């Protein structure tokens, strides 16, 4: 408390500038916070080589309405990082499909060398679960690549 005309004119030690030295800390804190909390889709690193297609289109649906079914080369099926038996797929998918108000899109992410037999089985399972909209996930093929092939 400084009194007006009190006689003592003690110079304040507090700086009258905004402290900018800690601003960097705040920014880095934010940077690190976002780096740590960003979660990428868990099962993104399945060992799969995509089939290629020129006509591959973006899936026109919200991310939460897309269910990925992964199929590895040996025919093993993964849904949400969980391995499933082929005959269980319809049992697993049906409640999810009903829960999504029939808006669910199934993205079948199969390895390019999966024997078609397994692909047919999974389609039959999905039909049994009542699923209508299915996408065969594929990498966009450039025309140049096609010429070389």
């Amino acid at each position, binding site marked *: 408390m400084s009194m007006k005309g009190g006689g003592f004119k003690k110079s304040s030690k507090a700086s009258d500038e905004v402290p*900018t030295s800690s601003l960097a800390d705040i920014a880095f804190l934010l940077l690190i916070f976002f780096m740590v909390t960003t979660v990428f889709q868990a099962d993104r690193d399945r060992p799969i080589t995509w089939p290629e*297609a020129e006509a591959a289109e973006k899936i026109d649906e919200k991310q939460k309405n897309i269910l990925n079914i992964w199929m590895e080369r040996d025919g093993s099926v993964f849904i949400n990082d969980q391995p499933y038996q082929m005959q269980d797929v319809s049992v697993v998918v049906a409640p999810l499909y009903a829960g999504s108000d029939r808006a669910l899109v199934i993205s079948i992410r199969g390895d390019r060398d999966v024997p078609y037999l397994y692909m*047919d089985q999974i389609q039959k399972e999905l039909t049994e679960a009542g699923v209508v*909209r299915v996408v065969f996930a594929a990498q*966009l093929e450039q025309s140049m690549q096609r010429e070389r092939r």
Partner: protein
Amino acid sequence: MAVLNNKKSKVSDEIPTSSMADIAFLLLIFFLVTTTFPKDKGLAVVLPEPGEEAQVSQKNILHLIVQPNGIVEVKRGESQQVQQMRPREIEGLWRQEVTQNPNLIAAVKTHPEAPYRFMVDVLDGLHSANAERISLQVLEN
């Protein structure tokens, strides 16, 4: 001369930290802007409803039989004539066929041991040619 050396330098001997925040925010904003989350791409198909079976006249069906080596055998309806093709020729074939018969349905029958990518190649050709009536089946003997 010795007197002149005594003059205090005006240059600060500290590292300037005030611009550090700008650098950090610049980085933050740069990564915020340039980050694109990969959007999934693929070939969309519509599966039939359970128990739904449509009777289609044989003359409206174009059979595309995908063999394990990637060769596609094309059979038109009832005729027994088989034409062998490569998957990339399907697009042209479909465009040609559909002008002759707009009700044509593509029945893609894949051999159980054929790699999935050959079916995708055929499906890709059909999608490129804007085919809408596609049926996916497994080849039964």
